[in-house]
């Protein structure tokens, strides 16, 4: 298991990863509450970026509606807690199942009927928008007025019901991010991983080689949707409120894919670096604006847009591939595609 995990990774890369992990583990000892919430945000986007990357980076299916799975997962767990007092860990399987089912329906319709490329991306947006309007009228979970969970009690950590202070949430999302990283690393070297990459590079050729492209594309969507739903459960219990207008909005889907695109689509380190850069820079920008006493709504998003524009224009592969070459980690297993 361990052997399979590390084979092919240069020692330098392993040391770097170990140092990074230690730094993350120790962070709550030195970080204040504000820093911790920023780190939680970074890890949250690393995790969701990793989940999205399975679909787009590994299997080449562009989803612009991943907010759908965050929302479904979050709403499923939050509604069960709100109405029946069922804790998040018990409702997690159901939340994942609901999102995975939505992904399966979308995938089945799209792949069975040959909806690909532009049309597929638009279909994913349409599903998310459909859910947004649908949940606006779904009164059992609060409709457009939103669903609120009883506010967290900061004095006592209760891991079982995910009620507690930011440190607890930090370690939960850190564990999720590490698990997702390891899972994706193993997946890339698995049979499914190779099939996905074959489909991404040339679907016709993959089919000619005898790969059941329909089945593997379905695996990618269902897995990606299920993993994203876990993030949705975290989101619901961390923020304690859900509004269809916010949770399912297309800007959420875009926000979620910025990290992996800026970091490097199809790489394992990309989503993490991307999340770091985009969240870190956005927060610094906010601090600077705060210090200067300017309050301009929309400036942060313009900044996001400019970052995205700069990266797609000048670094079409994202930041990680050139960075890993510069660091001499070129043959790093964390890069899915060959060099």
């Amino acid at each position, binding site marked *: 298991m361990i052997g399979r995990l590390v084979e092919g990774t240069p020692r330098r890369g392993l040391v770097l990863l170990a140092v990074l992990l230690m730094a993350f583990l120790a962070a709550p000892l030195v970080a204040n509450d504000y820093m911790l919430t920023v780190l939680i945000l970074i890890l949250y986007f690393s995790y969701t970026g990793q989940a999205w990357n399975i679909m*787009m980076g590994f299997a080449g299916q*562009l989803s*612009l509606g991943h907010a759908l799975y965050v929302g479904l997962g979050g709403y499923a767990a939050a509604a069960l807690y709100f109405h029946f007092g069922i804790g998040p860990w018990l409702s997690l399987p159901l939340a994942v199942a609901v999102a995975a089912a939505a992904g399966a329906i979308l995938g089945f*319709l*799209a792949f069975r*009927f*040959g*909806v690909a*490329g*532009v*049309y597929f*991306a*638009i*279909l994913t*947006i*349409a599903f998310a*928008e*459909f859910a947004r*309007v*649908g949940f*606006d*009228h779904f009164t059992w979970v609060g409709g*457009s007025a939103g669903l609120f969970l009883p506010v967290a009690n900061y004095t006592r950590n209760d891991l079982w019901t995910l009620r507690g202070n930011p440190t607890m949430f930090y370690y939960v999302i850190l564990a999720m991010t590490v698990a997702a990283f390891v899972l994706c690393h193993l997946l890339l070297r698995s049979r499914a991983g190779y099939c996905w990459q074959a489909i991404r590079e040339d679907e016709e050729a993959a089919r000619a080689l005898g790969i059941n492209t329909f089945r593997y594309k379905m695996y990618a969507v269902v897995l990606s949707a299920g993993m994203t739903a876990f993030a949705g459960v975290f989101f619901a219990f961390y923020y304690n409120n859900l509004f269809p207008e916010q949770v399912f909005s*297309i*800007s959420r889907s*875009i926000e979620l894919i910025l990290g992996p*695109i800026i970091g490097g*689509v199809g790489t394992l380190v990309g989503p993490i670096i991307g999340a770091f850069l985009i969240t870190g820079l956005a927060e610094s920008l906010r601090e600077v604006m705060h210090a200067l006493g300017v309050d*301009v*709504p*929309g*400036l942060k*998003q*313009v900044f*996001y*847009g*400019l970052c*995205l*524009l700069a990266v*797609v*224009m000048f670094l*079409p592969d994202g930041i990680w591939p050139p960075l890993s070459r510069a660091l001499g980690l070129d043959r790093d297993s964390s890069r899915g595609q060959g060099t």
Partner: protein
Amino acid sequence: MPAEIYLNVAVSGLLTGLVYGLMALGLSVIFGVVRVVNFAHGEMMTIAMYIAVTLFAALKLDPLVMMVPIAAVLFALGYAMQAGLINPFITRPEHSQFMLLIAVAIILVNGLLIIFGPDARSVQTSYSFDSFLIGPLIVDATKAYAGAAAIAVAIALFAFFRFNRIGKAIRACADNYMGALVVGLDVKRLYALTFGIGAACVGAAGAMLSLVIDVTPAIGPAYTLLAFVIVITGGLGSMPGALLGGVLIGLTEALAGLFFTPSAKTMFAFGILVLVLLFRPQGILGRRQA
């Protein structure tokens, strides 16, 4: 409910649908020729709407009269976008092009938010509350003018592509990229012209829509999506298809608002999109691709 109400709502939906169709026509022209999906389409329309609203507020200029200059401004914007940003991306993978235009869309939406703030603005013309009585029908004057203008612009565009030399050259680029290069057409310039023409359509549609709906910076993405739904329903790349799709979606939205609740109307538009994608992916009037 008396039958006249259905008829009135249907006519109103049909007229709005024509304006939607004109907006979608812009998207369809761009996709049909440049093969790039303009993810900033609704955002460009929002810019046109803000120009119309600002001109009206400052100088009392009627948006329907200002339609032509506004379309010209959007033409310039579209031309510049294609020539400066998108042309280098023509050979890049699809998702790369998407991300480029999504970045442009994000910048446009939030740029408008910074300049104009989040409040809704509207245009109140002298004929805002006028209507025509045609037998049992009551037709809203604003929508009637807007619908007629949409048809006029669409006819002008059809004529341009059918009879004008540049229009024919653009069609040649769409039919056969390599062939167009071989006969010596300046494809990049024609692409920029096409994007400009598509943007001009959406500019004209924006000027008209400013009479019908309130504008806020945030409506852009919703109209981008609406344009996609219309164009895919009618057939991506088909010009009559875009108009037909617009009318169909306009009608659906109006009737869904009447029978159910207005806030749920977009669900029906998306329902149509899903059905079309599954059973006639090339769209109602689209040609199946080889």
